[in-house]
């Protein structure tokens, strides 16, 4: 079984617990939306799964295809098929997107294996055409001086090239105007398929109009407090997060 399984996960930043006993299983082909108010631990969850050194897992486990990945370095997790689309992608001055992706593709190859440059560029341009990205884009330095929309498209392009098994998309809609949002969502929809599981982290229901999830989970205070299908997102939109808080208080 090649699912991404989060079991009773507890994550802390320093001494402060952020994620508290969170469990969730994502199967290939499924899109799970994680919604919730700010500061509830959504981004922490994604970064902890990817292995960010600032986040300490104090309890629980994360399994990929039945095997724990917690002992693995971030780059090993990435090569195993976990992709994090960053909310705030870093700039890498002087390194072009084409060269960066080439290094990332090369890193996935066996020792002594040489990357076929012609085939690589062919594939890169194919993906760019698919995502309707201008070819000039790849000669620019990674994220340097990019607009919010360009940064997110750059993330989607990387995802398309690296073909992960699971994508953790952290607030992919933040900072985007409606046109940019539509373009990015189209890109994600293009990559959707039976081989890809997606965790879609968002604050707003808006994104879910373009990327329709199979499941919606509401996160509050480090836990998933409510799960349902896409109708849950609409309910949240009309009743707000206070509704969830009140329900929790009653319980």
């Amino acid at each position, binding site marked *: 079984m090649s699912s991404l399984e989060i079991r009773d996960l507890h994550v802390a930043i320093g001494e402060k617990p952020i994620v508290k006993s969170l469990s969730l299983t994502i199967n290939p082909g499924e899109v799970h939306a994680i919604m919730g108010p700010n500061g509830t631990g959504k981004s922490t969850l994604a970064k902890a799964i990817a292995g960010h050194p600032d986040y300490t897992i104090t309890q629980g486990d994360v399994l990929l295809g039945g095997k724990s990945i917690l002992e693995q370095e971030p*780059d090993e997790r990435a090569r195993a098929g976990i992709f994090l689309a960053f909310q705030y*992608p870093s700039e*890498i001055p002087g390194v072009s997107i084409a060269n960066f992706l080439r*290094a*990332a593709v090369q*890193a996935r190859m066996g020792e002594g294996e040489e990357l076929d440059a012609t085939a690589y560029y062919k594939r890169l341009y194919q993906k760019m055409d698919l995502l309707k990205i201008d070819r000039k884009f790849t000669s620019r330095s990674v994220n340097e001086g990019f607009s919010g929309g360009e940064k997110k498209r750059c993330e989607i392009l990387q995802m398309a090239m*690296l073909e992960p098994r699971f994508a953790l998309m952290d607030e992919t809609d933040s900072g985007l105007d409606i046109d940019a949002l539509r373009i990015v969502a189209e890109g994600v929809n293009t990559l959707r398929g039976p081989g890809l599981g997606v965790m879609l982290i968002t604050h707003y229901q808006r994104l879910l109009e373009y990327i329709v999830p199979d499941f919606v989970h509401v996160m509050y205070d480090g836990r998933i407090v409510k799960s349902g299908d896409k109708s849950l997102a609409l309910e949240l939109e009309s009743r707000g997060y206070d509704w969830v808080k009140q329900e929790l208080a009653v319980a």
Partner: protein
Amino acid sequence: MKTPTDLETEPAVDVAENPALGIDQAAGDFSYDVSYKYDAGVGLNENTVRYISAVKKEAPWILDFRLNALKTFLAKPLPTHWATRDLENVEFDKIRYYLSQGQKPKRTWEEVPDDIKKTFERLGVPEQERKFLAGVEAQFDSEAAYSNIKDIVAKQGVIFLNSTAALREHPEIFRKFFGKVIPTGDNKFSALNSAVFSGGSFIYVPKGVKVAQPLQAYFRINAENFGQFERTLIIADEGSEVTYMEGCTAPKFSTSTLHSAVVELVALKGAKIQYITVQNWAPNVFNLVTKRGVAHEDAEIKWIDCNIGSRLTMKYPGVVLKGRRARGEVISIALANDGQHQDTGAKMIHAADETTSTIISKSISVGQGRATYRGQVHMGKHLKNCKNNTECDALLINTNSRTDTYPAITVRGDTHAVQHEASVSKVNEEQIFYMQQRGLTEAQAMSLAVNGFVNDLVRQFPMEYSVELKRLIDLEMEGSVG
């Protein structure tokens, strides 16, 4: 002579054996037994100098020049009032100042002795020659063991010889400029070089000749405790153009080794000289080099200088802008790894109207490595419309890395334009995590960040050199993480 104690030699041993240096580069870390025919012994005095001059069968004026230089060298103090006190660790009386197999430079590859050939094969000299070189003057220890000028270049009247042969065969050309750009007394190390110089390349490009392909020489140090004192003089006559490339890889030894070269360039009216260096010294080498060029009217001199490795490098390529509208440029990259100090920079002396100069310097400090930039820009009061643009950027890899910038800018007169920009940045953890999340190891991520930092400069290198440079940076960064 002082007797060595364990304490004295210890620091050098530490540096050489420190695995964190990551300088293990397969191409340079080897040495073969070579039986030296001539050996000037250990230490330096008048006899050493006389011995070297006699072996080389030099004209009396050169011997006088050397003896004079020896006096100057002995009289001059170490410049520790501004430079690092690490210079005090150079043990001048334990160095061999001259070694040679007493061979004439070889013309064809077949004539080169096998063990020397092996060394060069590992350095890729013949291969590179086939690819793009017009002439190769590869220096093995003191003398050039292999030299070859392609017919085309020779037919154009270009002279490309080692220092000994050039001074013997063409004194009428070289004597006039020898020791004039960098006088013996310029500094203690230029004086030392002037006393014991050996090898190096002397080049003369006749009027109007444009050498299409770069000329190249490789330098290596191949004997323990052996200082290498090559001497290079390039004269580009009116309207001519030449590019010279110099690459250095040295085998590792556990005691200190001294490299002290003097490089003089003369670009006459309207001539262009480009001098490219990629140096990768073993971590026990003191690399104390004086490089300067004189650019006459409408002439252009460009130094591209890349320093990796060594224990201490002190090098400030300069251009004296002597003629109207002369242009000078220094582009430098320095990488200081643990236990290394790269003290580099540039000098631009404006001595005529409407002269322009550019300095772009980038340094990378890894671990406890230290990079220092020293720049001198001088514009006199009587001059008009001179321009300088200086940019120096430092990248720190670790929190204990160090960088210093000492710009000295003297501008008199009111029609000059001078611009100085400096920046210090650090590779941050988020950047590294971002790259790791794409599947790169931490070392690969570091290496990519460093390569990105120097990318705009590396693009100005010839292709072969930029590939080599990228590989060297990768190797240096391997030891920098974890």
